[in-house]
């Protein structure tokens, strides 16, 4: 978790400093992800490259119950009529279905900030990918550890 925090801190700094660092890391969504999530991501991004940066996926590192996990996505990019964040798609690795939610924004959103609450059947990685109006894709990931409930209904 310490490593995760450090990584996230770096990303946050990166986002704050602007897009300069962003293209250094190219994430190919073909890594250790289960196939379905991979396929869902590919359906969204096509063959376009997906770069790390701009996107900040905010999730608690440890959640008390997987039935309700607060999730927020912020994208550090302006929302101008011809240059804006168009779509934010969230994917999960281990739920029965890889898609979590897809948010469609417009220049009138003013800011690329959304939040919701999600279910996680198990500890896993969550991926948020933003598509800008210029067609580029940006990604952030987070690991969430889900606590097993004690004294649940039998």
């Amino acid at each position, binding site marked *: 978790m310490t490593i995760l925090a450090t990584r996230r801190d770096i990303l946050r700094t990166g986002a704050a400093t602007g897009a300069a660092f962003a293209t250094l890391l190219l994430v190919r969504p073909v890594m250790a992800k289960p196939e379905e999530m991979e396929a869902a991501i590919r359906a969204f991004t096509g063959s376009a490259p997906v770069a790390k940066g701009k996107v900040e996926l905010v999730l608690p590192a440890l959640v008390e119950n997987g*039935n*309700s*996990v607060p999730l927020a996505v912020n994208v550090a990019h302006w929302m101008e009529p011809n240059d804006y964040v168009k779509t934010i798609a969230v994917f*999960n690795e281990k*739920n*029965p*279905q890889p*898609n*979590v*939610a*897809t*948010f*469609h*924004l*417009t220049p*009138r*959103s*003013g*800011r690329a*900030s*959304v*939040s*919701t*609450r*999600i*279910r*996680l059947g198990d500890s896993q990685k969550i991926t948020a990918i933003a598509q800008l109006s210029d067609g580029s894709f940006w990604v952030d990931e987070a690991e969430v550890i889900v606590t097993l409930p004690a004294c649940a209904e039998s």
Partner: protein
Amino acid sequence: MARTLINVPPTAKRGEVVEIKTLISHPMETGFRTGPDGALIPRDIIHRFTCTYNGEEVFSADLFPAITANPFITFTTVATESGELALSWTDDKGQTQTETAKITVE
């Protein structure tokens, strides 16, 4: 269909980015659960959410079974002019519920 809780600032300055928070009561049945009889409980989720501002769509979302029961969604919009925000939720049964909120832009 359901009870909703919507938070839209009643007033805003022109050009201000306002946050909108929404809650709606819905079981969001995933379609992956089995009932007491062992049979699969059919999926019944809200799969679509939209927000229009004086008739123009400013935000929408496609939702999947991973969204919690009683879905909570927040997003932002620019306060452009006084008028009405219309929020709509559509579920798997094809029902759409629309709620409106007024906003006064100064």
